[in-house]
């Protein structure tokens, strides 16, 4: 009896507040927009019967999404932004993780804490901090003008460049930590062996270090790519009107246009796009766990 309650309480909670809401999103994505409260039709009622209700649903919203270039562009540019910023995070994060793993042992806990600390600080504030740096009269432009590198201020805020910077900055700990934990376990004598056998330092790095930290690289890349794809705060604060990201489109469809069926359809497709990387990620994690055992 006690075991039953232990299983049932969290189970029912998640069913009611996680699974059922998705079924509702799916249902509304198949409904039509209506000038009513709530603004969609049909609404379910037991009087008409389940079948009559199901017959009223259609794929109109999805056809509409497929025909409207805005949504295609938004999906493609989210994918592009997520991919490029994942690559940039890897390029910036790897040397940091590498240096942390090479640092004297007594420094490492402090370095770890310095990487984790920003993660505990508000995401919103970390994105906001860049607004003052990247704006026309911001600190970066002031600095570059002062050094004489540029003659007039650059426009960075409200462009895709600012979005890349924002994503790299906020998601960096997710990239560094898995790579660091892979590199920390790396046996230094393997690199020495490679060098003894005639590898140059660079060759040893490419042939030994990189392959042995592959799992960390893969895990870190997924941890950045998956949330970056549905990101809303960064494009809406740092991006411009031409930075299309699907999370922002969904938000505007819902809050500005009040088109709930289309917003739901956007959500369903975003989820379908995410299923592939999520499944790949889980597979990779599982493989890694099995390899460790």
């Amino acid at each position, binding site marked *: 009896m*006690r*075991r039953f309650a*232990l*299983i049932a309480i*969290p*189970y029912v*909670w*998640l069913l009611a*507040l*996680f699974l059922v*809401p998705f079924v*509702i*999103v799916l249902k*509304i994505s198949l409904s039509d927009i209506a000038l009513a409260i*709530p603004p969609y039709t049909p609404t379910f009622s037991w009087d008409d019967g389940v079948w009559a209700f199901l017959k009223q649903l259609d794929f109109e919203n999805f056809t509409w999404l497929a025909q409207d270039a805005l949504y295609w562009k938004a999906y493609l540019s989210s994918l592009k932004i997520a991919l490029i910023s994942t690559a940039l995070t890897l390029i*910036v*994060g790897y*040397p*940091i993780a590498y*240096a942390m793993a*090479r*640092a*004297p042992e007594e420094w490492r*806990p402090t370095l770890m804490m*310095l990487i*984790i*600390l920003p993660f*505990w*600080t*508000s*995401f*919103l*504030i*970390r994105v*906001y*901090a*860049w*607004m*003052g*740096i990247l*704006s026309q009269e911001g600190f970066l432009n*002031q600095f570059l003008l002062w050094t004489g590198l540029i003659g007039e201020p650059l426009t960075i805020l409200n462009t895709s460049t600012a979005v890349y910077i924002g994503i790299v*900055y906020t998601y960096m700990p997710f990239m560094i930590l898995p790579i660091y934990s892979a590199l920390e376990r790396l046996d230094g004598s393997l690199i020495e062996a490679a060098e003894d056998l005639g590898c140059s330092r660079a060759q040893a790095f490419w042939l030994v270090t990189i392959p042995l930290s592959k799992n960390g690289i893969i895990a870190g890349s997924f941890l950045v790519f*998956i949330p970056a*794809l*549905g990101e*809303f*705060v960064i494009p809406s*604060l740092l991006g411009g009107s031409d930075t299309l990201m699907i*999370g922002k489109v*969904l*938000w505007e469809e*819902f809050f500005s246009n009040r088109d*709930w069926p289309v*917003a*739901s359809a956007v959500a369903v497709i*975003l*989820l379908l796009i*995410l299923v592939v990387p999520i499944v790949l990620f*889980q597979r990779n994690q599982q493989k890694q766990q099995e390899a460790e055992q």
Partner: protein
Amino acid sequence: MNRLSWFNTVSLTLGFAFLYIPMIILIIFSFNESKLVTVWAGFSTKWYGELINNEAFLNAAWVTLKVAVFSSTIATVLGTMAAYVLVRGGRFLGRTLFSGMIYAPLVMPEVITGLSLLLLFIGIGLDRGVLTIVLAHTTFSMCYVSVVVSSRLVTFDRSLEEAALDLGCSPAQAFRLVTLPIIAPAVISGWLLAFTLSLDDLVIASFTSGPSATTLPIKIFSAVRLGVSPEINALSTIMIAIVTIGVITASLVTKQSRVRAQRDEQAAARAQ
């Protein structure tokens, strides 16, 4: 071998500069006299003063704190139960679905979670306010708690529990007297994680809150959309200070307890 090459030193320096300079600038300019955030006009704490007198911010902070305390506490109870079920529950009907529902919210885009919960609340006719935000935050943060606690439960030596049962404890007593004290650090860090996630959340709260309940992130977001403001800098500085003190205290406490545990072990070894 343990000396850093110049390349490593440079990457560490640049990396940490990149991570910390934006926040340091933010903190410095919260003490700026001028309303213009990018021009230094002398030291002043006037923005902190304005913040204390800004009733809208104070109300939002109070709502946020209430939501965070309630949601993280409920999430810790539910998440610990879920972790226990996943690690110790054995087989039961729908176990795969259950573990799927624990892991899915971790990777779900916030816009989708927020939208779906809002549609549920409207569907069942629940008025949006503090209650709906608490329900929403509890749902996603219990999954984080459950991941943290189950990773501790996996490495837990089960024979300790069995010994308690053999010595006459009821299963509930064994849990309270043996299991809970051992997994307590994981439960506490789960609670802290849930608490910060709730404090920090903008997207899900925006979908599930009503006009009667505005949280601090919602308030900050609508203010910064109009541009950088010194008042928000002051607020950010306070929040950064609280987090920094909290994290440093927590790490010192864990370090101390680890040292104590080591000393106890050594003493026990000597006694033998």
